[in-house]
């Protein structure tokens, strides 16, 4: 078992070089550019729903079209729908965009021709 503390100078220099490379910066930007706005969006939508459920009880209890189904229930089911949708959108994006970029970077690291 190698201890994390006795990381060799050479290895350290190599990781720092990768971290400073343009290619890695682009990968990080790609990843954060997707997950940060997406996280902000789903949290905003979730807390909007929580606030509506707390402060707009009568609005949420409004029945739709003569049924017992209410606006609150539909919005709640929409939370399920958006969660499933974000999950599939992210998984698809990560498979198609993120993984190839990370794999290319790993290969360039191996060969030592990182940009």
């Amino acid at each position, binding site marked *: 078992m190698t201890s994390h503390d006795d990381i060799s100078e050479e290895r350290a220099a190599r*990781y*720092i070089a990768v971290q400073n490379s343009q290619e890695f910066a682009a990968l990080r930007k790609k990843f954060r550019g997707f*997950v940060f706005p997406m*996280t902000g969006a789903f949290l905003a939508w979730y807390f909007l729903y929580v606030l509506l459920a707390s402060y707009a009880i009568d609005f949420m*209890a409004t029945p739709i079209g003569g049924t*017992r*189904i*209410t606006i609150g*229930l539909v919005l709640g089911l929409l*939370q399920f729908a958006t969660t499933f949708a974000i999950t599939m959108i992210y998984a698809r994006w990560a498979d198609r965009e993120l993984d190839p970029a990370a794999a290319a970077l790993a290969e360039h690291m191996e060969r030592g021709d990182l940009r």
Partner: protein
Amino acid sequence: MNALTFPAQAAPTTQVGNTTLNIGIFLVFVLVTLGIVIRVSKQNTTAADYYAGGRAFSGRQNGIAITGDYLSAASFLGIAGAIAINGYDGFLYSIGFLVAWLVALLLVAELLRNTGRFTMADVLSFRLQQRPVRTAAAVTTLAVSAFYLLAQMAGAGGLVALLMGITDRGGQSVVIAVVGALMIVYVLVGGMKGTTWVQIIKAALLIVGAGVMTAWIGVKYGFNLSTLFGDAVERAKAPLMTGGLQYKNKIDFISLSIAIVLGTAGLPHVLMRFYTVPTSKEARRSVVWAIWLIGLFYLFTLVLGYGAAALVGKDAINAAPGKQNSAAPLLAFHLGGELLLGVISAVAFATILAVVAGLTITASASFAHDIYAQVIKRGQVSPDAEVKIARRAAVVIGILAIIGGIFANGQNIAFLVALAFAVAASANLPTILYSLFWKKFTTRGALFSMYGGLASALILIIFSPTVSGAATSMFPTANFAWFPLNNPGIVTVPLSFFLGWLGSVTSSEHNAAKYAEMEVRSLTGAGAEKAIAH
């Protein structure tokens, strides 16, 4: 068919169903899972085997196991019961538990898998000072696991009362001890591999069981939700489609929502499951499977809850031993008689067993890998010796869980689980996010955030109405509550983020090499722990 409705209407406090059948079905589950655990555990020697199941599970298998780990007795019996009694407010609870998984999917799962080895502390201490950060992460891991464990064990007592007709505390204590002992056997024999299989089997049983009941109600109501809701409202004589029946305090509900949505990705036993797959891509697959299955299950509980309100009725549920928690079992009895009740009861027991086993392995790993091997022995310990310590720790934790469960018997399960989420969201999540995403994060920031989050959450809970000052408190006769909310999340989560920032800007520490290694590894998987080929 008279017998089906008899207990619910004529003699509400009588034992429901056939005790021998309930116990029989449960014993079959135990024997089958034990057989599988022994079979899959032939290779259970190395640390990676014991802690991470050899990292050889597929994303789908792990996703099902995560579902089994996450859907505790509190979510199955608790949410169905909350919807049956309080309608819409019970449903709100389940939404937060699902949405929370997006935090794990987008921000945590893959990066954690690429960076760590066995525990949450591996990631948090990666680029900071090993011993203090590891100690803090182990302390919060043990705290969260302890609350969660107590909730499950306390739930076992109530379940026993309902399903086996054991109403005296002595008898319930014996059953809690048996459940605990079984769980210790699973963990010792099976390690993470065996535990994972127990969770997979349990998740499949739970989802199929809930699905069958949902379809049954669907057929009864011609797949018309509106008719079902109508019947539920008529029978309850309460506005079950309107919010506000359960959550009287608006700020308290918002506080609970914060704790739930940010707590899930800080639960150590959930995080540890990401180490059981070979790559970060499989970690991603795991969460995708988990989100679909957990979401599907919560949709089932919506139908089951309103179904119990319409078919069993509030009065019968409240009169049963276990009250709200008995809504789902009573509904099973109403629909399918003794046999379906027996199956659902066995599934509920299996739920407790599987979740408790997962928690025990997490707590024992944190003790052996973080505190014993890295902090006490400073890394100078062989993996074999470490696993030996982990096994002993599992036995001790199991015994403590039995004792705690006997004392906590009768406590509100949902309260204990909400507490675990509040502590996870306050003590763990800020440090996880900071260490993965913020370059200037320091050891002081991590310690401030973890200890500050843990301490503030515990203090506010102790002085909250959940512990004293209200009829529903742990100590209803005492009153030392000065904090008005049951859940502290709205205060302690922002406070913990603030403390992490404050500690970091007031200290300078930057391990450029470790930071570079952590960031490159987390995003590319280069140098991440590989699966073991047996």
